């Protein structure tokens, strides 16, 4: 199903959807782009949002359960579940790389029945993703090398393409098709036009990373390349790369109490922190900066592919490249990994 909408009709399209959904989209704030509730218009000319929209499904701080902090109360000290999300949401103009990241994370958060993260699932189920193809990828984008692309459809319900004065909407999932069903059918020329834009965008992504050796070699071989002795040297072990990354999903769980109210919350955590793996005994299986930096790259480019049939744990959005305070460039790291495994 391929539909089209004139840009001057977007506002009315959105206001109709607003009756049943909360609508979100990217919004400019200086040179940065953040996610915000939509106020009627949609942003089309933007690089990707500064932070990934992962917090829509995996908030940085999230209450998981609560309890009455009173041992004398018959219901005290027993954890109670939190209410589910009480709205349905649509994220407009999410970039295809971010949607692909969430599709990857589905395999982490919803591995099987015993490991079904209900918090993730609840929000994923209630959120429709309308992607926007990237007509002008950034110089730090390398999605094509990691199984994604500027017009990738994986994880999206609808893919939109900015045709200038009109927007093309391609329905991907059933619920996506339903959202756009009332729009006009796209003309043959619109579809052709979108195809052209896609080809054009892909040709603009010139930076590549090579992964073949990393994927084919044994885990310990990749683990023991000399690169690890150097690449960590200037790393600060801050969590910027992991917090900006759309596929990083590590978290910590903490209990908090206030009077007779108590709760269990989870917060984003980062493999860059020494605390992350520190045993109470003082032993730390990833006690050095080298161990921690290696873990991040091994996880994305070896461990996840190992588990998920070759699927790479990075979508090539390039956020970590521009946010790293010491310019540890994932593209260089991966290429050097691959090179050293020749």
């Amino acid at each position, binding site marked *: 199903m391929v539909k089209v909408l004139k840009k001057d009709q977007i506002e009315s399209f959105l206001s109709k959807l607003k009756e049943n959904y909360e609508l979100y989209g990217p919004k400019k704030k200086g040179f940065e782009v953040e996610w915000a509730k939509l106020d009627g218009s949609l942003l089309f000319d933007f690089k990707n949002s500064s932070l990934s929209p992962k917090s829509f499904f995996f908030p940085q701080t999230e209450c998981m359960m609560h309890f009455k902090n009173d041992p004398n109360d018959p219901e005290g000290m027993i954890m109670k579940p939190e209410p589910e999300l009480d709205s349905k949401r649509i994220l407009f103009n999410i970039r295809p790389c971010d949607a692909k990241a969430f599709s990857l994370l589905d395999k982490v958060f919803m591995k099987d029945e015993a490991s079904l993260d209900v918090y993730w699932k609840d929000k994923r189920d209630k959120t429709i993703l309308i992607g926007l193809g990237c007509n002008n990828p950034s110089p730090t984008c390398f999605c094509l090398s990691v199984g994604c692309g500027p017009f990738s459809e994986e994880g999206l319900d609808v893919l939109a393409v900015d045709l200038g004065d009109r927007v093309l909407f391609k329905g991907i999932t059933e619920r996506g098709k339903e959202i756009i069903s009332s729009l006009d059918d796209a003309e043959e020329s619109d579809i052709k036009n979108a195809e052209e834009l896609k080809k054009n965008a892909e040709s603009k992504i010139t930076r590549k990373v090579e992964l073949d050796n990393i994927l084919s070699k044994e885990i310990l071989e990749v683990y023991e390349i000399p690169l690890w002795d150097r690449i960590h040297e200037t790393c*600060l072990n801050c969590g910027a790369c*992991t*917090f900006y990354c759309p596929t990083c999903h590590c978290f910590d769980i903490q209990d908090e109490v206030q009077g007779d109210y108590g709760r269990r919350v989870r917060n984003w955590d980062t493999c860059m*922190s020494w605390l992350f793996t520190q045993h109470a005994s003082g032993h730390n299986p990833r006690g050095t900066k080298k161990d921690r930096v290696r873990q991040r790259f091994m996880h994305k480019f070896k461990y996840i592919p190992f588990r998920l049939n070759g699927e790479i744990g990075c979508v090539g959005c390039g956020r970590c*490249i521009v946010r790293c305070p*010491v310019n*540890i*460039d994932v593209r260089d790291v991966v290429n050097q990994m691959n090179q050293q495994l020749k």
Partner: protein
Amino acid sequence: MLKEYTEQIREVAKRLLKDKVVDCVIGYRKGTVPMLDAPYIAYTEEEADNLIWSSFCVSNLAKFLIGRKGKSAIVAQGCISRSIVNLINENQVKRENVYIIGVWSPGMVDRRKVLEKFYDKEILEVEEDGDELIVKGKDFEGKEFEERISKNEVKRDNCFTCMHRNAVIYDEFVGEKGEETGGGNIDNVAAPWEKLSFDERWEAFRETFGSCIRCYACRNVCPLCYCSVCFVDESKPQWCGKTQDEADIFTFHILRAFHCAGRCVDCGACESACPMGIKVRRLTSKLEKDVRELYGYVPGLEIGAKPPLAVYRPDDPENFITP
């Protein structure tokens, strides 16, 4: 890139490595992204060819001296050399284990100010030409542009008010010594919220630090933050919650800044490292000013100086005391 300086730094580095005076040279390399020049450690003469000196050398290299074995050379402009003095005074680094390649800082560029200026464009390349930057890129329609801007317009805040652009201690100085100050008056800008009313100050504080994502880049880039366990990471007792609640975030920032009191040399690395662009110096520069005004102390200038919080004078101001 400040070409002549770059050449001379490489030359010195190669000589030091060749003669085995040092095991490595800690300096900067060109970034893979415009304006993101980064720390780099050269171990061989070939690697020394990666070293550069530019207006984008914003990280604090002194950090990499902490816990390092052997003898290292380090490229140090004023603020980095002062950080080294601090580390020596705080027994984190031994003077004899460091070979300081002193250098003059032209005042570093705040990358975010450039990005802000070209907010609707994609910057692909930034070159230096004397006091100007040549910014090249394209807009969203794909149209290319090239524009010259004055470095002064986009200088980091702390570099404006810098009082020590030349290294304060060194084993060897590279190039000519330059203008010592950034030209700005620190007292006019150190504590901008002092002018505000009580409630406005809290609002300004919230506004400034509210977007923190707690990545701790500010702490981890800072050469003052070398505690083996930071208070914010302690669990027995837990001083500070781990959530995104304002109180947790603000407690971290207030206490971290406070721990830097009398020690911070205003190198600005925290602000440059912050991925959210938080003006982290709002707190540290206020403390720096207080320490200067109340106790007449400027950190990082003298090896052997007593830290201001480890001493007192009978005539210290006492108006904070409940009589």
